[in-house]
């Protein structure tokens, strides 16, 4: 579409001022004003005839197949002219869904007379399938009296998936392998409850370890050497209630939780453990039984990528009771959840207490940086002081709940989003090292 340019508006405004001046001052005949408008109209019409239209252009976008949630994606934009040169583009915008940042500006530079390239950076703020519907271009006419605004449809779909950057970058492999090697060989042998091998009994060994039947058969004292179990069950329980939709550091809490859960799955695969998934909100949702970590990872990844955002309040009683009934073996349960205050956390604490009798519980929640910022900010008004007091009260209430959980023997992990994955893996490795499961 074509619209008047700023220059034409300025000229028209100037012509109007001159017209009023001419009529008021009466220094020239009124026909001078008429001539002024006629010249402006002729110039505008001539310029309009020379401006290239939007039909001569096409646009192409290069995009990756998948984008990790919370990361930026850079799309390459190529604009080509079907005939003639590409007009000098004065402005370019990508029309993306709100989850990708909405309308985003970018720059185009000519690389050839009939081609201009550029790149637009979009931020993937949510999981899901989102569209970059069109590219908007704007270029002026030769005299800059008009502007052509063109909407070039692209219909590009971007799939935003959970962020597994720590997995694909090898960070987790490096951390877990280095931790497990050196711990497994020295700690697990002889200290676990799983039979490893028969060894010759030597002085200093516990006599209770002697296997009398095999000793009789071999006619020499042999003892059982035990080791720590390797195929522990790990259940990743994700609370998908409305509290987990709240954004922290530009991403929903549930997305941070999903990213950490997938990193944990990968780490558990390296540690030889079985990983299962359980999600809930007002009622139990997905349950994937524990399976070897390497095999579980793709399954969990696809399941978690499809998990939507819920707007209902979580029912911890129903969800944790359901999980307790499903688990027949002592497991490590990592619960990603959140609570608003001590009152609403009451049921959560009670149910975790029940679950903690048979399993090892790690309760993971994200610290809200806003509460910290408000408490430490220098207030410039009485209202800001009041807000800081409220923020401190809310932080104190959270701490009360976490302290109560800690007293029950539940491992609590309240951390900032950027350190969530690292601290969760450290906790997992510590649990393995201490053989809590």
């Amino acid at each position: 579409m074509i619209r008047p340019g700023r220059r034409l508006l300025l000229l028209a405004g100037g012509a109007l001022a001159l017209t009023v001046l001419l009529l008021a001052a009466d220094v020239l005949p009124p026909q001078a004003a008429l001539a002024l408008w006629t010249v402006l109209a002729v110039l505008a019409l001539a310029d309009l005839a020379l401006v290239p239209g939007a039909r001569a252009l096409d646009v192409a976008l290069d995009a990756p197949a998948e984008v990790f949630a919370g990361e930026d994606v850079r799309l390459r934009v190529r604009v080509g002219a079907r005939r003639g040169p590409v007009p000098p583009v004065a402005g370019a915008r990508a029309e993306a869904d709100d989850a990708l940042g909405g309308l985003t500006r970018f720059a185009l530079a000519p690389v050839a007379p009939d081609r201009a390239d550029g790149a637009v950076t979009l931020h993937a703020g949510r999981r899901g399938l989102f569209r970059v519907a069109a590219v908007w271009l704007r270029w002026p006419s030769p005299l800059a009296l008009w502007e052509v605004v063109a909407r070039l449809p692209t219909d590009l779909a971007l799939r935003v998936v959970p962020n597994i950057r720590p997995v694909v970058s090898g960070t987790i492999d490096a951390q877990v392998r280095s931790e497990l090697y050196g711990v497994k060989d020295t700690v697990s042998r002889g200290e676990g409850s799983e039979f490893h091998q028969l060894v010759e009994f030597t002085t200093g060994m516990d006599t209770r370890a002697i296997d009398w039947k095999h000793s009789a058969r071999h006619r020499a004292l042999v003892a059982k050497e035990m080791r720590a179990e390797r195929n522990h069950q790990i259940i990743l329980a994700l609370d998908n209630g409305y509290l987990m939709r709240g954004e922290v550091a530009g991403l929903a809490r549930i997305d941070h939780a999903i990213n950490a859960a997938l990193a944990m799955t990968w780490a558990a695969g390296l540690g030889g453990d079985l990983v299962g998934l359980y999600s809930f909100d007002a009622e139990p949702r997905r349950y994937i039984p524990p399976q070897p970590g390497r095999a579980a990872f793709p399954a969990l990844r696809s399941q978690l990528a499809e998990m939507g955002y819920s707007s209902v309040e979580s029912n911890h009683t129903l969800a944790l009771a359901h999980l307790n009934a499903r688990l027949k073996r002592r497991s490590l349960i990592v619960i990603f959840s959140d609570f608003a205050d001590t009152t609403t956390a009451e049921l959560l604490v009670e149910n975790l207490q029940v679950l903690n009798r048979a399993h090892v519980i790690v309760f993971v929640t994200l610290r809200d940086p806003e509460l910290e910022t408000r408490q430490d900010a220098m207030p410039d008004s009485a209202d800001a002081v009041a807000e800081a007091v409220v923020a401190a009260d809310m932080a104190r209430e959270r701490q009360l709940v976490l302290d109560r959980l800690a007293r029950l023997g539940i491992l609590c992990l309240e951390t900032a989003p950027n350190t969530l994955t690292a601290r969760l893996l450290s906790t997992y490795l510590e649990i393995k090292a201490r053989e809590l499961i």
Partner: protein
Amino acid sequence: MSAGRGAELAAIVAVAVVALSVGWMVARGGQVPVERSAVGLRGLVSWMRGQDAEIRYASFGTVAPGSVGLRVIPVLDTDLDAEFSRPEARRDWLMTGTERDLSRGVLIRKAALLPSLVVLPKWTRAVRHTGYAHESLLLPGADAAAAARAFDALPAPLLRPGGVLRFDAGGGYGGLLYEPQLFAPRLAAGCAPELSAGPGHLLIRCDRGGGPVWLLSDPDLINNHGLRLAGNADAAAQLLTRIAGGGPILIDTTNHIFTLADAPAVRRRGWADLARFFAWPHVLAWFGLGALTALLLWRSWVRFGPAQVLYDDRPGAARSVSIAAKARILRMAGNDPRLFAAHVENRLRRVERRLFGQAGSAEPAARIAEFVARTDPELAKGFKHAAAAAMTPGTGTPPAQLLTLLDGFEQQAERVLNGS
């Protein structure tokens, strides 16, 4: 539509109706309901308008001399020197004749500025309320003559011959008067009879240096009662038209003058004045303005991209809103000193946590001061003093002073944490 919304709409309509009614009554210049009663002149106005005479009620607005041929002042006040005070007994009240107050000064000034016909009162309020005219409801003669006395036109009392009096207004028109009220034959100097009937005069004219003043002794000649029951309409119309000299007639029932002695003639604007704005060559400026407006609208119509959402109502905003709401409730409690003290206490805990790893002591200020005193006793002393001052500001300390105290504490805390 919900019940609440319906009630709200009904309330708005009711207020609008009341406002319109009040405005309408004010705009009509107090002619309701007296003017529609037996003693009013509403019928005369309608009648004369039906005969294409120019007659109107006075309302808010300036009347220039020369723009009105005759001002008719129907006096319904029996004491021009005092405001009417309502008697306690209803009977006494009904027997009073003051329907609307009129000041002596205003009456004389009105008569001086425009040719005026002063109509004397005759009946008590009971006539208007009952709808019946009876000799027992006549005003005392002295009360009825109050307006005439204002012009010193009455050396003798009004005549009340009683019965029915037929009069001839000239031009072949005549009428009847029930219980007539007449000026005595002897008139004051400068006054002359204009219309006589029976033993006295119905209408006299007085010239006292200013404009002429006509005095009508019996209002039944022109009021609704006389027009309807006595058939005085033609006589009244003919009489007024003659006095007004064919000019516009103004019925003035107000206690305001509305007249400027030397007001310039108001020129009425017409379509021709407006058309001059669009005549050549002014039309060029209008064309230019139109063209510029069209270009501006055109440019604003073609957007460079879709409209953007200014406020994204995301769940993440809930916590901020919750904090702001709770903070507002705390502020509304009106105990700012206690609020600031709580904040300083929280800040002390956080400083303690940053210094020692975890908070634990009952008196964080003392613990911090003790720790700092090992390296900088002056700083420790200043910190303790600033903390104490910020935590115990005293009741009623204004927020500005509290902020100053808090600022002093924060400066000390900053030095404790990061060194001076």
